[in-house]
């Protein structure tokens, strides 16, 4: 484990769900709302992505200053095409990001994200990937601002974003 306290300026290079190579730097100038998960996730991810979609609705025009990102912790199954199919219908505000095992590990480490492959015969392909459920807010300068646990209500997150963005 590389441990260095809170995320500071998370750096990563990944592939978005349109197949484009992107880096953290490409999103400078906008806030990033970052959530990690995997498309086979039955409960945590759909709930979180749904809540964050509601947050974006609650903040109205401010959402134009925010890039929501959904980073896979299951790159073996979450190809760009799978990410796109998962997000475009249900959570179209989000841009999905995936990559090689090494690239994903670098991104996870930058955000201090926990994820582990766990065998589960009841799951498709026989495994699940329990993972952290924090939502990270990254500033326009690429620096970590804060995080929100998944128990925090959408309204609270929305108020926090309004405060931070100065609206």
């Amino acid at each position, binding site marked *: *484990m590389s*441990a260095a306290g809170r995320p500071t300026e998370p750096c990563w290079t990944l592939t978005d769900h349109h197949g484009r190579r992107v880096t953290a730097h490409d999103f400078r100038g906008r806030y990033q709302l970052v959530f990690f998960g995997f498309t086979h996730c039955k409960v945590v991810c759909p709930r979180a992505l749904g809540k964050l979609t509601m947050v974006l609705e609650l903040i109205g025009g401010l959402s134009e200053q925010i890039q929501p990102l959904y980073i896979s912790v299951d790159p073996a199954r979450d190809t760009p095409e799978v990410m796109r199919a998962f997000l475009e219908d249900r959570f179209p505000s989000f841009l999905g990001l995936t990559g090689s095992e090494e690239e994903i590990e670098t991104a996870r480490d930058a955000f201090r*994200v*926990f994820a582990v492959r766990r065998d589960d015969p009841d799951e498709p392909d026989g495994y699940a990937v329990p993972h952290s459920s924090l939502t990270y807010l990254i500033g326009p300068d690429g620096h970590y601002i804060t995080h929100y646990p998944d128990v925090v209500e959408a309204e609270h997150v929305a108020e926090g974003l309004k405060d931070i963005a100065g609206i």
Partner: protein
Amino acid sequence: MATMLSSLPTQSDVFQAPLLSDEQVGSIRHIDNLSRLPRGDWRHMMGPMPLQEDFNSYRYQLGYMSLALALAHYHRLPAAPVVFKGALDRLIQRMLEPDVWWYWRDTSTAGGFMGIALPQLPSKSDPVAADNIMYSAYLMDMVLMYTMLFDDRKYEGPGSLAFRVQPVLWGADRQEVYEYDQRSLVDRIYWNLVQSGYLGVACEPWCVFQICNNVPIIGYRLHDHIYGGSLASEAMDGYARAWNDFGGGVNERGHFVSFVVKNNDYSPNDLVMDAESAWGDAWLGLLLNMWRPELVRTTYGDKVEAWVDRAGDGSIALKTFRPGSTEPIQTGPAGEFGWIAGWASEMGDQEMLTGLLRHADKHMRPQWDNGGLHYPRRDDIVDGEGHFVNMVPIVSNAMLPYARLNVADGLQSLFNSPWTDRERSRPALTGLSEQVDVRRAWYHEGDKRLQLTVSPMHGLASTDADLTISSVWSDDWSLTVDGVAVASGRAGEVVATDSGQRFAPRRTGDAIEITVPLDGGARDIEMIWGRG
């Protein structure tokens, strides 16, 4: 011990706050004595196992000595910061000594936990950067308790928590320094927790213990109290959910699960280690009562009874056979006696606590040294008459003092209601000569009345008590010693009565100083404000 677990006085009570017993003030002074030992002097603290590997390691002793002091200040002597501030600060400084944390250079290499084979890792020296929550959590709690209790921000300064190794014989290029402050320390530990999925930060690599991951919850709570944020609630919520994957941390017989070995190159799956033990139940029970009291209280009675034996005289000792069998067990060296006493104190189980202390005082050779009470180390488990007599430093130096000074739900209430400026700005004893014990120090806010009782330390027949009482000039006041008027404060001036001249009352800044001869034992000093 009549006041052991008595209810605490409320602000509106007009009565004498409880006096501390000889054993209670002796416990405080023993910890104070240990805190004052010169660098490298660990007398009374050296345990039976080398390499800082067992529960008598200095880090645990220092951690629970600090908690004992914090609980005593919070619950027993809230108007006597002078008794605790310097001692707690010195314990923090001792915690930073390489003697305490340098084991990590070797322990971080892993390789195995008792019978469990684990991969080996490169050596790491920084004792708080990763894993090693069995050290870092205690240091975090100690500095944040210090800040909370005394509003002294010395550990906020960059590098104020420095781990230095400057060996003379290894060459200057091998000197190491790792610098933190209390906020960067919390930050480091908390994000290690996040990266663990909230199950917990490991002690030894891969080994995540419930006990050691309840300790930092105190620190997170105090951090949130001082700086804002929600680390504690995030940690508790995440912990509860993460341990749900491991049976909620409780086995089918109601005992606490000890730890989880995380998956590694030798083991593809996490392993739950469920070795029921007296220390496991009691140690975790006393901590977990902070935030999961319903879980602890519903199982306390059955669990604690499984580990103790009662004698006809009311004294209580440890079982030396596994409950329900004739299989002997090696209780003692892990500090079981002390963990159970500490747990009983937190549960408010006065009968259990009194029984354990009675056994200790009857069979464990209590000794008084420089006004402090302790029990000398003894490595055999039972004596020739079959009495449990084992005594290890974590019990003598930390957990028996802790148990004597705690009150029912004492850690829980400190956790739930940390002090603010309101408590810290009250009139209080801030200066005291060294050979004086404080038996009572309570400010009754409703009555604007400060009650102090001081006595010569154990073993002294007489001494002079030089007292400094601070934050006294908010209103006119009067001061008595043993009920006799000594002085009053009017318009910023100290006026001594005729009989009070010999106490030499005088003003110093926002405080007053007096010198009280203690030639007849304990004396009561009382100040009342606003009575005209």
